[in-house]
């Protein structure tokens, strides 16, 4: 049985992953959520499916990619949860109804009391954390007043309350933008309003001309027309996503429009854009609950796009599928399982647990790699383009190294490192993704695949390997102090692993840093400018070089090497996140305030570990064990190859 167990476990989880490959379909007679989610729009400067817009918006507003409409219920009372696209359908096509949904997450108690929001009370359908637009809106003036004051303060100097106010404000603004993406939010009857607007154009324009020429003009026609135009212009000013495809894709595929712009251009002699008409039909059917008509409108629109916009449709469809796969979430789950199994293998010394962990890591790695490659394919870019993807790639690199170590040593250590770094970096990536679109377009200076593929990839591998060395050292310290499992052989093996990994960390971080300098020389005219991010990279190089020289000079032995490697974690995390938080320099692209707390926690934990590493040997359980058994009998020490779970 135990022989087959690892295979069975891995097989079950492989099936779970394979099941996701089935294309998501809408059920017969239900709203065509999937089909609607696949429609292409332009948002954040790029083509994306409605589904991505919905997920990224909801992630910003609610910090989740799904909307729980009954958050006051416990998970076992099966609250009603809808997908991001379904939520967005409501927001864009039936805003009144969407305004009642408790999707705004407000964590800060003082913000809640500022807005006089109700406390948690399941009886009154309140969970004390999620509120609806209708609940927040009555206090919007107070919020704006605070916002005006806070916007004068530099982000780095804002208190947590002030940060929370600004966050809520930007969430409300995003929501307002979405409500006005298709049609003005106050249009009760869309086809009627649309017809009324079209009818108002001719008399309205005539009235405008007359007024311009200081003649008598039709006041009513003037006002009615002007009200529409003002509304449309306001929609465009809100920077709503671009829904309407260009008239002449053969001339430029890029000229997508906002509905507001498409409605205004009618004044200049264009005819009503078919897409606007179709969206009007869609929204109307949605409001009136006519599922069949809505689904048909979506189908018709897709068919119309299929004539001239095949690349955009395909791109949207692919990204929709990518979102649906949720590869990084799935690999995260697998890493957690593998981590638990691998740790357990050290304690009850059973090899099947270790093999199962190894198998799960390989599976997780396959899924992780698939996600990474799919992302690269969608973006047409090398793997790392922003802070989010750097987290994903650091994890990926660490897993590769961990798997190699496991392959050589077969003692579960490589697996623990691979799964823990994989898991932690994917958690970090998940939290970064709450900031919004993770596939944003590259700013001009970054718009070079050559440097992204060389400098960024190499330096990120440098981060990966430094972290792997640091995590190996953590294993040494924890197992040494708290367990009796760190035998002399395992200790030696770990020291060899740490040393080998640091060699490569030095290579990667050095070459990556210098390549970065050369890129800077190409784009800013100087090789080295003491920019914070450059300095951060340099510190990693210096630190790794220091470890190597200290070891070569015999200044540190096994334990010293481990302590230095843990410092490597601090140095790397500071370079990865800390320098961005200084809020200065050319690279400060990823300021996140919540991240600061976590960084401090991480650094604190590493300092504790170092303190542990410096503690006298007689406090280490493993050293006591060694001394005791050493006194009892002189045992043969196994070579590194036989260093499988502490069986000596």
């Amino acid at each position, binding site marked *: 049985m135990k022989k087959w167990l690892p295979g069975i476990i891995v097989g079950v989880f492989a099936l779970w992953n394979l099941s996701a490959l089935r294309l998501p379909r809408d059920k017969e007679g239900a709203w065509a959520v999937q089909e609607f989610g696949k429609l292409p729009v*332009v*948002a*954040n*400067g*790029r083509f994306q499916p409605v589904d991505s817009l919905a997920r990224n918006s909801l992630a910003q507003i609610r910090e989740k990619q799904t909307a729980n409409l009954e958050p006051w219920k416990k998970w076992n009372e099966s609250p009603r949860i809808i997908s991001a696209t379904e939520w967005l359908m409501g927001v864009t096509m039936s805003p009144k109804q969407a305004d009642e949904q408790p999707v705004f997450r407000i964590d800060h108690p003082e913000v809640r009391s500022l807005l006089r929001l109700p406390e948690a009370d399941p009886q009154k359908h309140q969970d004390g954390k999620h509120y609806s637009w209708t609940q927040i809106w009555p206090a919007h003036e107070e919020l704006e007043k605070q916002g005006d004051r806070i916007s004068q303060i530099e982000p780095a100097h804002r208190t947590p309350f002030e940060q929370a106010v600004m966050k809520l404000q930007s969430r409300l603004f995003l929501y307002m933008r979405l409500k006005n993406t298709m049609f003005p939010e106050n249009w009760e009857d869309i086809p009627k309003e649309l017809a009324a607007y079209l009818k108002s154009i001719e008399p309205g324009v005539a009235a405008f001309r007359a007024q311009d020429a200081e003649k008598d003009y039709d006041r009513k026609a003037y006002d009615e027309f002007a009200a529409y135009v003002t509304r449309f212009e306001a929609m465009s*000013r809100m*920077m709503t996503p*671009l829904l309407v495809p260009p008239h002449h894709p053969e001339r430029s595929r890029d*000229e*997508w429009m*906002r509905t507001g712009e498409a409605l205004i251009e009618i004044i200049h002699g264009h005819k009503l854009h078919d897409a606007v008409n179709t969206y009007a039909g869609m929204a109307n059917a949605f409001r009136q609950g006519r599922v069949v008509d809505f689904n048909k409108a979506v189908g018709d629109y897709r068919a119309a796009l299929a004539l001239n916009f095949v690349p955009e449709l395909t791109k949207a469809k692919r990204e929709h599928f990518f979102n649906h796969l949720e590869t990084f979430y799935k690999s995260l789950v697998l890493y957690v399982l593998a981590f638990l199994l691998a740790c357990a293998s050290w304690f009850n010394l059973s090899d099947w647990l270790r093999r199962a962990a190894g198998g799960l890591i390989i599976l997780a790695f396959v899924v992780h790699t698939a996600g990474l490659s799919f992302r690269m394919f969608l973006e047409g870019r090398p793997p790392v383009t922003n802070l989010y993807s750097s987290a994903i790639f650091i994890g990926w690199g660490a897993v590769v190294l961990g798997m190699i170590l496991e392959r*050589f040593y077969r003692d579960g250590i490589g697996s623990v490192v691979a799964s823990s770094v994989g898991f932690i970096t994917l958690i970090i990536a998940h939290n970064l993704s709450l900031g919004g679109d993770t596939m*944003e*377009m590259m*700013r*001009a*200076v970054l*718009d*070079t695949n050559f*440097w992204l593929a060389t400098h960024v990839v190499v330096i990120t591998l440098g981060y990966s390997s430094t972290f792997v060395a640091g995590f190996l050292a953590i294993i040494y310290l924890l197992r040494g102090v708290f367990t009796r499992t760190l035998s002399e052989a395992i200790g030696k093996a770990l020291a*060899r692993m740490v040393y*080998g990994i640091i*060699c*490569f960390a030095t*290579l990667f971080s*050095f*070459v990556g840093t*210098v*390549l970065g*300098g*050369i*890129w800077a*020389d*190409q*784009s800013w*005219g*100087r*090789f*080295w400018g*003491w920019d914070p991010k450059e*300095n951060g990279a*340099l*510190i990693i190089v*210096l*630190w790794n*070089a*220091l470890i190597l*020289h200290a070891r*070569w*000079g015999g*200044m540190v032995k096994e334990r010293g090497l481990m302590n230095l490697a843990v410092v490597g974690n601090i*140095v790397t995390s500071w370079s990865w996140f800390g*320098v961005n938080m*200084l*809020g*200065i320099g*050319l690279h400060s692209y990823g300021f996140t305030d919540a991240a600061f707390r976590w960084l401090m926690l991480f650094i604190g934990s590493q300092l504790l570990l170092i303190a542990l590493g410096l503690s006298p040997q007689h406090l280490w359980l493993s050293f006591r064990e060694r001394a005791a058994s050493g006194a009892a009998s002189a045992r043969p020490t196994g*070579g*590194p*190859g036989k260093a499988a779970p502490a069986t000596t």
Partner: protein
Amino acid sequence: MQPNKLTQVLTSLRLTVVCLALGLVLVFLGTLAQVNEGLYAAQNRWFRTFFIWWGPQGAQWTIPVFPGGYLVGTVLVVNLVLAHLNRFQLTWKKLGIHVTHVGIILLLLGQLATDLLSRETQMSFAEGESRNYSSSSLNSELVFVTDSENPNEEEVVAIPQVLLASRHELKHEKLPFTIHVRHYYPNSDVRQRAPMIETNPPPASAGIGPKVTLLPLRETKKTDERNLPSVVFELMGPQGSMGTWLGHAKLDDQVVAAHNRTWRLALRFERQYHPFSVQLLKTTHEVYRGTANPAINEPGIPKNFQSRVRIENAQRRESREVDIYMNNPLRYEGLTFYQYQMGRDELDRNRGTSVLQVVRNPSWLTPYVGCVLVGGGLLIQFMMHLVGFIKKRRIA
């Protein structure tokens, strides 16, 4: 200390480790310092110096408290070179280490050369304009320009800003007057004077002085802003005072007459003249679709900045057009031109403006070579370790 002992210390790995540690602390502190001191000042205080100096606030004295970048770098190079001379063995086993260290020495020396020799200036112009000089973005100079005997040339007397800031009286043999500096402001702005409202005396009595108001500002430390200094000075001729004058980068040239000659005076950024001229033909500034909105001051996500320029070089009888854009600088006559900033002409919004960063750096190639050497050296060394390790495991 005995020479032997000294060599021992200077060639020791312990010294290497100490230097690396000091370097690390230095880089860390120097980075944090940028928040308050600004990039440029922090660089000079922490890296381009042999010591970090410190004194209590308000005190007149400072003491060195920490080795600066130059000191750590120098010791590191000395340590490296001596260690190699002392223990050099030409064996294949050590090849990687030698190559790596030669690369590092090259990088450090190259950086030192860059620090000492490179010059950064800027060339800013609007579409259609042509420039045969570029200007410093940091240092200003007070210039007096007059016609020379050769009709194609001008005589220029330039007084650097350092002198304006530190001296009270300045003389030059070519100038028929002496300059008495009354005020010097490291950063300031000027605007037109509102004669009815403003009752305080104007900054200067001659030239444009009575018509403007001078607003001294705090020195900025941000990398994306620059200081505009101003100077108020009195010119003293043989017959006595010729009035007080105001110099500021935003003001046009002012004319002063003395000894039957006229002089144009201006405080302007230091200029570096080139034996060729560059004309800005067209600027392209693209943003991603739907991300910009001038109505709410949203600049959008930049997609491309590009300047098309024409180079005219009479000496080489060269005239050609070329594009300069992000990550694609122009290297010409020992200078490198980078796309730096882009904007619109303040008076004519349809006319694009562009600022090119112009860098002369004779040692620009060293990092490229250094990178290859160090990367290759480390790779050789670690691969030898790895192969040895795997072989050993195979046998075991």
